[in-house]
Structures are given as C-alpha cells and as structure tokens.
C-alpha cells in the first residue's frame, strides 16, 4: 500500500511542453502574439516596424508598463489603488509648481515630489490596514482628493491649469536627465553613419538619426519589471507579498508582517506613478491638471490581462508587463493601420475578455481552485 519509491503511480505523465505552457502569463503571451500578428498583417508596411515606429509604440508601452508594475505588486498583495491616475497629475503639477512657480532647482522639486507622493501612498495604505475598509473605497477618495488639489493649486497660484517652462528650468540639472534623457546616443549615431537607420534629410537636424537614443522612460520600465519580478519570485519579501494577498489572516498567524507589506506596496505604486509623471513632465516640459486621467483602470486591466487574480495572492509582473505592451501596441498600431481610434476600445475589450477567460482556466489548473 505504501509506495515509498520516487515514482508516483497516481500521476499521469505530463509532457514538458504542457508544463511549460501552464503558467500565469499564458493569456498575456497569447495576446501579445495575436496582437503582433494582427498588425504585421494589417499595418506591416505602414512604418510601424521601422525604427521610429518601434520607438513610438515602445515608448507608449513603457508608460503603461511602469504603472502596471506598481498595480501588479499591489494587487498581488491583495489591494487596489484607484488614485494612480490622479497621483500622476498631482506629481507632475507638484514638480511644475516647485520648479517653475517657486523657482526651486528641478532636482529638489523631483525629490520632494517623490517624498510627498510616497507619503500619500503610505497614508492610503495605513488607512486601509487600520480601518479594514476596502482599498477600492479608500483609494477612490484619494482619486478625488488628489485630482481636486491638482486643479486647485495651479488655479489659485497661476490662474491656469497648465504650467509650462519646465524644459528651460531642467537644463543643466543633474537629476532631470535620469527621467527625460536618452541612452545609447553614440550607438544610434554610429548606426546612422553606417546607413543602418534613417537620418533627417532636411531642417535644423539634417544628418542626425531620426531615432537618436532610447528614452529613459523605456529604461525605467525595463528596470522596474526586472527588479519587481526578482523581488516577487526570488526573495523572502516576495513570499510575504503573495502571502499577504493570498490570506492576510493566515499570513499573520505565521508571523508575516502583513500591514507593513501592504503599506510598502501602496508606497511602491505611488513611486511608479511618480516615475511616470516625472518622465512625462520632463519630456513635455509642462504639467497639466488633466494628466493621467483613467490611468488606474488601464493599469489594472493590464495586470489582469497579465494573469493576476483581482482578489490577490496570485499573479506575475512579467504578465502585467506583457499586458501593458498589448495596450501600447494596440493603441499605436490602430493609428498606424489608419483605423478609427475608437476601435481601440473595442479591441481592448475583446482582448481583455479572451485573456481573462484563458487566465481563469490556467489558474484553476495551477491552484486547484474549485
């Protein structure tokens, strides 16, 4: 009766292939392949896949990736943050007011904004864990509070809701290039000299490569994905994140500091939102009170497409990043394909539905949910 050998007679042999496919990201992987196939067929010759085209949708995707990583970690820890979009607007406005209106150095404005926004994240988290209210409600309150301030302050101080002139202020600043700069410019110049990539033929920048470097935005996105993925899957803290979202009570019983973990994830989400805002403000040279509208939903949708469970305890940062890439590619791809952009929503809705159905199926196989 006791088969103490290593071979278990109650397990069917499963192929390597099947094992490799049964992973939380499967829905997102299928989605990415489908999206690229679709645009390779319908927009293959539109310039979407030349260097400028790739840079275009990569940059947009990277924006989605940055906020999706934060939302993903928080969702796995069992919470939501609906104030991400408002936080983006708020952070941008904070940098603009401090650096332009108050004429403080840009680096100081950036650092102070990070401190303020992460404190707000900590406050949201503390209210959630102390009161036991759903984070959905608490962060919804912050959605209104932050957006309100974002409109109120520039109105009162400058009598307008868009503040420009940040580019001039950021010149020569040591910190601003970390968000608005580019990397690999030498490499792209070399590529242009070798005639591998296109150059401008007219105007002030004639002879310069059309793609002059990789924006820091993309670097931030890559670094955040890699770091978050490693922390989540390979460290003790990562195990605590899964545990806090999987069953907070059970996690507490075995000594996981659940409240601290959740608060730190709210702060990380705020950090990601502020990175997004800072990159945007430095790049555009201005801050507007309506920036970041609806971003929280886009982040959450990307995370869910990526295989995370809405109620927490299960998910993947890589999946969330792929979900964000689907977003970016579809949004820009429809533009390249010359399709009415309202179809963006239709397309997204369809992908969301299919990815989530596939994800639910996969998750049941992995976790034995009944």
């Amino acid at each position: 009766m006791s088969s103490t050998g290593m071979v278990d007679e109650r397990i069917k042999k499963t192929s390597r292939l099947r094992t490799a496919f049964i992973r939380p990201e499967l829905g997102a992987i299928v989605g990415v392949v489908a999206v690229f196939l679709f645009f390779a067929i319908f927009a293959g010759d539109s310039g979407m896949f030349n260097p400028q085209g790739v840079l275009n949708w990569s940059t947009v995707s990277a924006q989605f990736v940055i906020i999706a990583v934060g939302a993903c970690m928080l969702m796995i820890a069992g919470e939501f943050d609906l104030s991400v979009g408002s936080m983006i607007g708020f952070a941008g406005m904070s940098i603009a007011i401090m650096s332009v209106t108050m004429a403080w150095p840009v680096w100081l404005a950036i650092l102070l904004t990070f401190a303020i926004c992460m404190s707000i994240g900590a406050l949201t988290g503390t209210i959630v864990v102390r009161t036991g209210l759903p984070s959905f409600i608490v962060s919804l309150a912050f959605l209104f509070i932050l957006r309100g301030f974002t409109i109120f302050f520039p109105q009162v101080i400058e009598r307008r809701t868009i503040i420009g002139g940040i580019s001039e202020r950021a010149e020569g600043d040591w910190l601003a290039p970390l968000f608005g700069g580019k990397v690999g410019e030498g490499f792209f110049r070399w590529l242009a000299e070798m005639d591998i990539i296109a150059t401008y033929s007219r105007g002030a920048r004639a002879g310069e490569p059309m793609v002059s470097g990789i924006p820091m935005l993309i670097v931030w996105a890559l670094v955040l994905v890699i770091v978050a993925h490693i922390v989540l899957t390979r460290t003790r803290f990562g195990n605590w994140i899964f545990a806090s979202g999987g069953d907070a009570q059970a996690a507490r019983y075995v000594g996981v500091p659940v409240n601290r973990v959740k608060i730190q994830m709210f702060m990380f989400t705020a950090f990601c939102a502020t990175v997004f805002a800072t990159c945007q403000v430095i790049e555009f040279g201005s801050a507007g009170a309506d920036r970041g509208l609806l971003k929280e939903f886009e982040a959450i949708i990307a995370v869910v497409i990526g295989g995370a469970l809405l109620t927490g305890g299960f998910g993947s940062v890589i999946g969330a990043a792929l979900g964000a890439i689907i977003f970016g590619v579809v949004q820009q791809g429809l533009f390249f394909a010359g399709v009415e952009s309202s179809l963006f929503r239709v397309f997204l809705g369809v992908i969301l539905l299919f990815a989530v159905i596939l994800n639910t199926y996969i998750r049941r196989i992995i976790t034995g949910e009944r």
Partner: protein
Amino acid sequence: MSDTVHAPIVEMKDIEKHFGPVIALNGVSFDVRPGECHCLLGDNGAGKSTFIKTMSGVHKPTRGTILFEGKEMRFDSPRDAMIAGIATVYQDLAMIPLMSVTRNFWMGREPVRRVGPFRFMDFRKANDVTMEEMRKMGINLRSPDQAVGTLSGGERQTVAIARAVYFGAKVLILDEPTSALGVRQTANVLSTIDKVRKGGIAVVFITHNVRHALAVGDRFTVLNRGKTLGTAKRGQITPEELQDLMAGGQEMVALESSLGGTV
C-alpha cells in the same frame, strides 16, 4: 514523573479574554513543561482555540499574565511567539491555497542565501526540507511546487503539522490536528507527538477524541464555557470520567445510554 525535574516553560495565569460583550475565557490557568504533552479538552465553543491563540501571540489577553521560561512575557504578534520558539498548528491551518507547498511551509521564516549584497530565498534548501518533512509524516508529495489548493484536506493538515514540528523549537501547539486525517496519518501524528515530547519539547494538544488524548497525554485540562473544570494527571482519571467532563457533564450519560454505548 518529570514534573519535579522541569519548571513550566509556559505558564498562563488567570487568563481572561473578552471579545466585546462575549467572555470567551474567564480566568483560565494552565502550564506546560518541557517533555510533556498537555491535552486541552472541552466541548465546542469552550474556548480552547481562543486560549491557545493567546499563548501563540494572536490574541492579547484582556487580563492575566503569561510567563515564558519563568519571565513575564507579552507577545505582541505571532512573530514574537515564533521567535521565542513556539509553533502552532491552528484549527483553520493557516495555509494559503494559492501558494505552493514550499512557500506555505516556510511562510514567515524563509531561508535566505546571500549573493553579494543581495539576499534571495534559498529554494533548493526549502524544497528539499519540505519534501523530507512531509515524507516523515507519511505523505509523498508530487512536487514541492504544487499549490496547497490542489492537496486533499488531510494532506493540507499534514503540511501544517510538519511545518509546526519543524519550527517548534521549544513549544508545539496543536489545535485539533487529526480532524481530517486517515488512520495511518493519525497514528503518525500521535507517534510524532510522542517523539517530539521525548526530545524535550513541550506539547499542547487539543482534541475531541478521548482515545487520542489518552494515547499521548501526560496531563489533561478540561475547559467548559471559558473556565477550567480542572487538571488531571495520567492514571488519575478513567476514560469514561474524562469523556463526561469533556462533554460538559450529565447530559452525556443520558445520550450515551440512548446510543447504546457506542460514543
């Protein structure tokens, strides 16, 4: 026998616990010594789980004192109790179905491995120990990566027991650990309790099964409606007396006769 040798490792004095208007514990005193198995018995709702939760740092007592190794102790969280060497199998197991067996086993106490300035979870060690401890309990896992949600109820309970046994350095608390187990696994758990106790660890064992209690218990404390009905040593009490105490007294006699003495 050994109680003259060892002083109690945990001593709970006049513990009261109120949940709002509910008085779950109304002055319970209890102690457990290294190398003994102290059984905590009583009817449903008597307050057994609440009592051991104050011992393991989940609840703070409303009134009363806890002495650990002779010194007064305040456990602010289960983590403090764990660090002191107290491990618990909770009645509802504290297992997370979505996570793998290994991640559950080590939850809160993950082994780490240094790589330069970074500290990563040591999955190789974690997986090996998990598989080995489960094998000792008589369960062959398919894979340590398997989610706890895919295990049977008894297998889940065994993971929780194996985890507590592995981490219970000084005190091991088991709240109805055999309620879902098969015959072989139950025997395994009882013999594990015996082995652990002989190794000098203090065991607190909650059960509704008189035979299991008598098989491993050195002392028996019966709780009834938040109070102790008293503590008896092994040999001082017959199984029938114990059963009557556990059921809260007289009604049981009547019930038993109507069931033809099968209970």
